[in-house]
């Protein structure tokens, strides 16, 4: 990676940071280089990186500045350098909210999203959807539906995630593309499955009957993706909270306590103790799981467990008492957030003796 090695002078000025002491106006002037033909990919990628860095540092671009930079950037579509093209997509996303007439790149992006290069397609879809408005949506709908069921997981995920973002442009996008999302749900890729479930829930969330059907179907199959499993637990709990399909769904959430992924096990334990069922038999298994997590070597896991127990101690202090010894060990935890949570939990459940010890 010696893309920046040539900037020896800058290095000496900026104490090893090639991006220090950059002037917005200077960098925007450098962007005129984008108009040169043939495009020098290395040089242009470096300038574009500087622009993106400035924006990321919180530098505000005026409408005129942003529009000029944007239009100069569109010239870079002539180059076939992969990294440069990908940086252009990033630039489009970053400038789309400030620059004017950004829709002029629609055809270039549509060409890229339907092209052969997978590395372009996924990223082009995401860039295209940031500049799409209600009027343009109809024009790209066909391509988007195809992309959702594409065999490349990157492309499929990009299209699914973008359709969720497009909900703000048009409320029923998810519903119109639900059939394709349903197909993507069967994907072997863990992320595609997760994103598809998110789109399906968005499409049906106003129709409780449809959600019930979706959830009860999925609880009978086992989802490969731990992320999708967490999402499904949340969907099941929402229904349980409204008392739909109680027995079956409750058993499903309980069965997730034996999932092989810690993420899902914790999600299930957290859900069970928050469902507001106070039977000691029902609380025993999630509490013993949380108790186990209290002794985990991973701080995040200890934190998660003690946070859930803490909340629970407000409503069912007696049930949490079983974990008092484990919580006492956490009082001296090196992580201050964990120690604080442990102490406040014990104050709700324990006697003075345990804090004293």
């Amino acid at each position, binding site marked *: *990676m010696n893309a920046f090695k040539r900037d020896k002078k800058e290095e000496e000025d900026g104490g090893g940071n090639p991006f220090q002491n950059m002037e917005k106006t200077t960098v925007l002037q450098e962007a005129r280089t984008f108009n040169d033909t043939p495009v020098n990919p290395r040089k242009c990628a470096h300038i574009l990186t500087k622009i993106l860095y400035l924006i990321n540092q*919180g530098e505000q671009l005026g409408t005129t500045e942003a529009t000029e930079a944007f239009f100069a950037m569109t010239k870079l579509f002539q180059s076939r350098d992969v*990294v440069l093209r990908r*940086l252009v997509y990033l630039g489009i996303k970053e400038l789309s909210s400030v620059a004017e007439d950004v829709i002029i790149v629609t055809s270039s992006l549509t060409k890229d999203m339907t092209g052969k290069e997978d590395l372009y397609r996924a990223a082009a879809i995401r860039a295209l959807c940031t500049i799409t408005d209600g009027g343009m949506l109809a024009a790209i709908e066909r391509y988007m539906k195809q992309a959702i069921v594409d065999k490349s997981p990157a492309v499929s995920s990009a299209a699914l995630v973008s359709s969720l973002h497009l909900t703000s442009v048009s409320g029923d996008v998810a519903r119109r593309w639900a059939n394709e999302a349903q197909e993507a749900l069967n994907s072997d890729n863990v992320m595609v499955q997760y994103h598809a479930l998110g789109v399906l*829930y968005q499409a049906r969330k106003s129709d409780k009957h449809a959600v019930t059907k979706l959830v009860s179907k999925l609880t009978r199959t086992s989802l490969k993706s731990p992320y999708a499993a967490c999402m499904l637990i*949340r969907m099941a709990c929402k229904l349980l909270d409204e008392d739909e399909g109680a027995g079956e769904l409750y058993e499903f959430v309980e069965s997730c306590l034996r999932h092989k992924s810690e993420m899902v096990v914790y999600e299930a334990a957290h859900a069970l103790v*928050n469902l507001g069922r106070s039977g000691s038999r029902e609380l025993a298994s999630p509490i013993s799981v949380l108790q186990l997590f209290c002794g985990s070597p*991973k701080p995040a896991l200890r934190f998660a467990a003690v946070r859930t127990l803490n909340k629970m101690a407000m409503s069912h202090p007696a049930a949490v008492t079983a974990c008092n010894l484990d919580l006492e060990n956490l009082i001296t935890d090196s*992580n201050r957030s*964990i120690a604080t949570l442990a102490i406040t939990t014990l104050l709700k459940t324990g006697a003075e003796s345990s804090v004293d010890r």
Partner: protein
Amino acid sequence: MFPIGDTAIRKGRKEGRPVTRVHVTLINFDINMDGQLLEPTLYTVKGMAILDNDGNRILAKYYDKKIFPTSKEQKAFEKNLFNKTHRANAEIIMLDGLTCVYRSNVDLFFYVMGSSHENELILMSVLNCLYDSVSQILRKNVEKRAVLDSLDIVMLAVDEICDGGIILDADASSVVQRVALRTDDIPLGEQTVAQTCTQLQWSHRARMPGDLP
């Protein structure tokens, strides 16, 4: 927003019942909002940041317009976050109502932020993916200078991990594959077969004028 409350209010008004009934439903609703039950949504990540050892921003993205809407607020939050985390290597902290998981190496600090009700292990998986992706991109040389030298690729990686608050990919090796490293920068011995194929494809295409990629 909350149909239970709304319908209750409308019904109550129609039947001339006292407003206290409505009040009760709202209290229930508040308990739910307290993260008792998590809303099924893919929008899990509130932000990601890479800071240097002075707490200055190298890269940061915030995905929720409602938290820290201005750059000033973001930087103030980052300073605060850095002050509370740069000495304690504790992996997780609750700050300003956000759960932040973090990791550091030499002179770099990596953060992933989520709502305080979010499943911490999901946030942790995103953080690990961010760190491992950067580590693979910089060929295990995770330090500030190296990040700045490959800033373009690191930016692309961040964009591949999270899209507008939705986890796009949490597997570092697949993220690195998707950012299309400049193949001519990797010694041939370290290249994967796929990369070599791509490179051959590209050099072949370069000699075939007229067919656009």
